């Protein structure tokens, strides 16, 4: 049953990829000869949407089967959580697509969902029995609700990025210093997304050829353990010694303050993501000989920026109550039940609060101070960066009570 459920996830992944291509066709193929732009866009948009819906059902099958097989909701480790987050992103996209019927939204939202599935697949996929700390129905309620909220924020991010690509002035004659130019930061944002893509590529390639480097690590109390890298080691673990002969590196050592499970390996992976993302970015840039956002801008030219702006805002307005409920209120109830305090300033709790404060600032800026357009779009983009930071890096860099989540 677990094998079937994994295949369903794979199927969903492929369907999302194909529907992404359909949405790209819908957006970029409008000016091809012999066709009516409106009809073309609607037709391919519809194809893309049905494919997404099929992928969504397949992913739902994955969740249901895995739940039945494992005996608990599939939200108990990093693989399951990331897979669920991608499910939430696709669900949010489906809802917003049904409201606004904008194929370009699919072109920007689906990659986020696809990247999350790919990112999930990097983590161990075993179904594990629940440790006592997770044996509570709040595991289902808290984690799923929080992920749903974050999924809607992801669509807000995608729309925010889309808005910025649509409106940022791409003309060459800008007198502003580079750090004040919208184009600089837009290219930076795109390269961050590419870093995630690069990370997934590296992991996939090296695991396909079965690459491995093993380190022996001595911890604070003098105990030694082995850490296996599946990527070539740029950074050795703190207090680690390589025991496999082949392979290259290390060139640097992971700082000792990084915490969590195997911080060295994660730091190394992060370095690979950054390097591969930067290489990927410049390769693409060499091919198109333009800023990447400048390539995408003409595709979006016939979309009213005000509509994209509203989609981005609307996503955040829909996501905010869900996030509040899942990541703060349900979290407090579970914390009171499990740890005897509803709030304990654990780093993950603090970062959930930071995310919440950030989106509250966004909403106040927008609703009371009239921040629309670019400013608001930038905040939508940064907001989701904060979400990803909370989900991924807080566990990487800061040890806390949520460490058993698999990272």
């Amino acid at each position: 049953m677990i094998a079937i459920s994994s295949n369903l996830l794979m199927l969903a992944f492929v369907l999302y990829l194909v529907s992404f291509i359909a949405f790209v066709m819908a957006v970029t193929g409008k000016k091809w000869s012999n066709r009516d732009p409106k009809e073309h866009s609607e037709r391919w948009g519809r194809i893309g949407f049905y494919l997404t819906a099929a992928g969504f059902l397949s992913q739902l099958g994955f969740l249901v089967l895995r739940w039945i097989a494992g005996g608990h909701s599939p939200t108990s480790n990093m693989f399951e959580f990331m897979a669920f987050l991608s499910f939430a992103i696709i669900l949010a996209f489906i809802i917003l697509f049904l409201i606004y019927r904008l194929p370009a939204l699919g072109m920007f939202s689906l990659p986020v969902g696809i990247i999350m599935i790919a990112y999930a697949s990097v983590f161990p996929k075993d179904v594990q029995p629940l440790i006592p700390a997770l044996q509570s129905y709040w595991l289902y309620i808290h984690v799923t609700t929080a992920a749903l909220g974050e999924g809607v924020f992801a669509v807000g991010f995608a729309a925010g990025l889309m808005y910025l690509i649509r409106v940022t002035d791409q003309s060459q004659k800008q007198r502003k210093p580079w750090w004040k130019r919208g184009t600089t930061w837009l290219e930076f944002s795109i390269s961050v997304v590419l870093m995630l893509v690069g990370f997934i590529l590296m992991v996939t390639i090296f695991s396909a050829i079965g690459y491995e480097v093993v380190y022996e690590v001595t911890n604070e109390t003098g105990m030694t353990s082995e850490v296996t890298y599946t990527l070539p080691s740029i950074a050795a673990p703190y207090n680690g010694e390589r025991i496999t002969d082949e392979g290259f590196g290390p060139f640097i050592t992971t700082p000792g303050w990084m915490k969590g499970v195997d911080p060295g390996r994660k730091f190394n992976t992060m370095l690979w993501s950054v390097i591969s993302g930067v290489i990927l970015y410049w390769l693409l840039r060499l091919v198109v000989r333009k800023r990447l956002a400048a390539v995408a801008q003409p595709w979006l030219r016939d979309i009213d920026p005000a509509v994209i702006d509203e989609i981005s805002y609307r996503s955040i307005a829909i996501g905010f109550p869900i996030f509040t409920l899942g990541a703060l209120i349900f979290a407090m109830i579970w914390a009171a039940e499990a740890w005897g305090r509803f709030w304990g300033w654990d780093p993950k709790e603090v970062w959930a609060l930071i995310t919440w404060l950030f989106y509250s600032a966004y909403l106040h800026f927008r609703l009371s101070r009239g921040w629309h357009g670019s400013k608001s779009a930038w905040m939508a983009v940064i907001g989701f960066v904060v979400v990803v930071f909370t989900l991924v890096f807080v566990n990487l860099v800061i040890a806390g009570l949520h460490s058993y989540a698999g990272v």
Partner: protein
Amino acid sequence: MTTVDDIKCECGHTNPVGTLLCEACGNPLQKEDGEEFPDMRYDGVSRRSQTFSRTIVDKIWNFFSSVRVAIILIIIVLLASIIGTIFPQEMYISGPAEQVYPEKYGIAGEIYYKLGFHNLYTSWWYITLLLMIGTSLVICSLDRVVPLYRALKKLPVKRHLSFMKGQKVYTSVSLSQDKEPVLDQLQRSLSKKGFRVVREGYSLVGEKGRFSRWGPYINHIGLILVIVAVLMRLIPGFYLDEFVWVKEGETRKVTGTEYYVKNVEFKEEYYDPEDVPEGVDVEGRVVKNYQTDAILYENRAADTPGAPPDLVEVHRDQIRVNHPLKYKDLLLYQSGRRLNEVTALNIDLIHLEREEVIGPFTLDLYHPESEIKVSEDTTVRVLEYFTDFEWTEDNEPRSKSPDPNNPAFVVSVISPETPAGERSWIFLGSTLSSPDGEPVYGFAFTKPEIADVTGLMVRKEKSLPFIYFGSGVVMLGLVMGFYWQHRRIWINFEGEEIQIAAHTNKNWYGLRREVQQILQSIDVERSIEQLSKGGK
């Protein structure tokens, strides 16, 4: 009540001082020629903060009523909270803070400690910031909700043309048909879309979702309730946070309460690979359950000072992770365990010269007695106890943690021979006599006591129901405010021309689509773009 400052509109209505748009007809009151139409955000009502700024109270009110100030406060709290996660807070480290931070995190850690960031979330300035946000919540809401309520309660039908044209959605159509059937049709399509319609002469107004305007204020009230509930924890007796270790079979006083708890049995269970579903990975040993079977007693003699405890069983429960024992306000959580632990040292006190055993005594590692009678005239006094002993860099003894990982006692033997007491160190398996002079007494270890020990967290949290209630109010407000929107559409016949204006507090695209569809019902086509231009 009217004052001299009140503003009279050309339509004859008298508005309170500070009003931007006439409450009756919507005509801009303070507009100079060429100036933009005022912001519709609060319907142009008179707000205290925008009107008075003379006294100190006005100034404070104006400061806290500003959303700008609120956002700045939110951002400061946000940044401060980030700082607090750079290094673990003091409660998550073990050992004295002044040593741990520099040792573990170097110079940055030392600065972190010196600036007090190791206790950031309980620092006076962080709490002050939170209270300022609370104040801002109250004043911002009051400043807006009262006048807004006044303004929205009236729903004037016919509005001034400049009000109509000032709206973000405005269009006009020339129609030569009969007015009545057109208005009837418009009224029907508005009603069909859920609008409440009022008609007066040749004017119509449709409104829906007004209650969503109160969403933000309800949500803010909820947040205030949560803040008040959190502050209630400072009331004595509302909040208790203690910890107690209980050996199997032992009955212990629950720290900070008049209850006693007995650890009947402690269980640690593992998943059986046979029992888990196929494909589920139980490599290594995966813990399935930590459980303390506990009996809770109440001490009926608690009110009589010095009386021996008179225990009456009040409650029995299986305490598991995620399933605390609940009895009245008291909560006991499964939160630690030590299996096959040495729980007490059994020692024979020996008179070295006479080579004679004076008597056995026991040093309990969890709850040591301070004075133990060994024989008629000999007592052992525990002067100091380090649960997790180590020497500091300055050669001072100290305890790394409250858990008895490496117990060390300083005892003094008092007898007729040593009336001032003879001091010795007792460690796990070894002793150290005081260096001055030949020692009179020695110690011989016998079999120590071994047991499973359960760690129970003791909590009282009377503010919890209030916090949940406040959170519920927050959610109600958020859902009201974000999942509904307040929409108004004004329609007015002026001669042959029909003027249509619309306003919403958010989701303009949806509003424009609705206006578009309503116009379609009278066979008028307007694109979304045409409706985006507004009346300007």
